């Protein structure tokens, strides 16, 4: 995962298993003269659950994109101790193909992520997130909430060890939000989760750490 010149990322080795999954020091991101993320120190332990809050423009999405490797830091250091195979990312976009069905989209990602027992895993996730009946429909026909559910299936497909979720409750209806609550509850303590939200109360019981950006 190339995160820029000031960043090192390495695979998990036996001696590193207890090391924090994410370590950032004076991490900063600028786009030209505009500062997208103020200098930040951050440590997230393995299997921790970090909830990131902050007003619009405070840098939540930027931080999550830096951790996912989709952006490079301008200053500071960021170490993410997870291989690309072990990262699940949910952003503001679904990252799926509109003209493919849910099944085809997940099959594509399942192949690229070398998911074992791919078909069973895809079926289980589609069932869990209530998309099984709509599995043969193109993503372009999905509502915003259904797309978010599909994006969650995509992010969880390979059972990542580090899950980066940018405002995952966006567009979900009550049932979808409850499904996500249940899924996150199952992952708590088993996987490392970095989640940004405007509704911290919703995930308060899950959080092992909190970060408020300003």
């Amino acid at each position: 995962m190339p995160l820029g010149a000031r960043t090192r990322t390495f695979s998990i080795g036996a001696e590193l298993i207890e090391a924090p999954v994410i370590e950032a020091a004076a991490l900063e991101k600028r786009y030209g003269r505009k500062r997208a993320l103020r200098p930040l120190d951050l440590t997230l332990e393995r299997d921790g659950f970090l909830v990131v809050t902050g007003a619009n423009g405070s840098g939540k999405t930027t931080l999550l994109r830096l951790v996912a490797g989709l952006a490079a830091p301008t200053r500071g250091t960021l170490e993410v101790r997870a291989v690309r195979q072990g990262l699940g990312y949910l952003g503001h976009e679904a990252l799926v193909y509109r003209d493919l069905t849910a099944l085809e989209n997940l099959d594509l990602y399942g192949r690229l992520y070398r998911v074992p027992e791919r078909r069973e895993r895809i079926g289980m996730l589609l069932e869990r997130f209530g998309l099984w009946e709509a599995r043969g429909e193109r993503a372009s026909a999905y509502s915003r909430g259904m797309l978010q559910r599909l994006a969650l299936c995509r992010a969880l497909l390979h059972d990542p060890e580090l899950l980066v979720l940018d405002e995952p409750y966006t567009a979900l209806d009550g049932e979808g939000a409850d499904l996500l609550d249940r899924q996150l509850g199952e992952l708590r303590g088993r996987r490392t989760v970095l989640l940004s939200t405007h509704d911290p109360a919703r995930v308060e019981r899950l959080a092992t750490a909190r970060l408020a950006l300003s």
Partner: protein
Amino acid sequence: MTYLGDVLTLARKDLLLELRARDTLPAMLLFVLSTLVVFHFALPAGADEVAAQGLLWVALVFTALLGLARAWAPERESSALEGLVLAPCDRSAIWLGKAAAVFVFLGAVELVALPAFGAFFSPVDAATVAGVLLASIGICAVGTLLAAMAAASRTRELVLPLLFLPLAIPLVVGGVGASVSPDPGRYLAFLALYDAIFSLLCWASFEYVVSE
């Protein structure tokens, strides 16, 4: 799954998307046929056959440009390219899969364009067919990389031709040379060399195109 497996998976995805949307190949076919018809009437009666060969290459290059402009459109929607970049496959496989799909589209267009050219102007010989095949590899390799660079720009429709056409000049020189020269082998070898060098450069540099 191997590297080749990833490439096939990605190319298959692009072919499936085109089968569904049908917004690239029909446009390319219509464009190349329209262009050849226009050239047929534009070229004065009794014009040199060599001039007609040049027009074939103009039609093919601009038709390829049309397809390349659409090559990364599915990835722009819903930022699907980020999804591919996050996947653990080698990033060059993304480029190779896309280039392979573009090659299939361009090959399909050429299957129609060459007989049409034969009907409007003069029959194409084996050297021309070999030149078209080799030039297509170069067009797809370079064009797919440049299209990915242009896709990140707001002015992608302007940027792609400005980047692509200068790099396509050697392909046109080699292609026309293979079509009209009494010794086409030299030009075909030149095209093969271009393909080898630029394919390698594009393969190695795609990683940097999709990384910030």
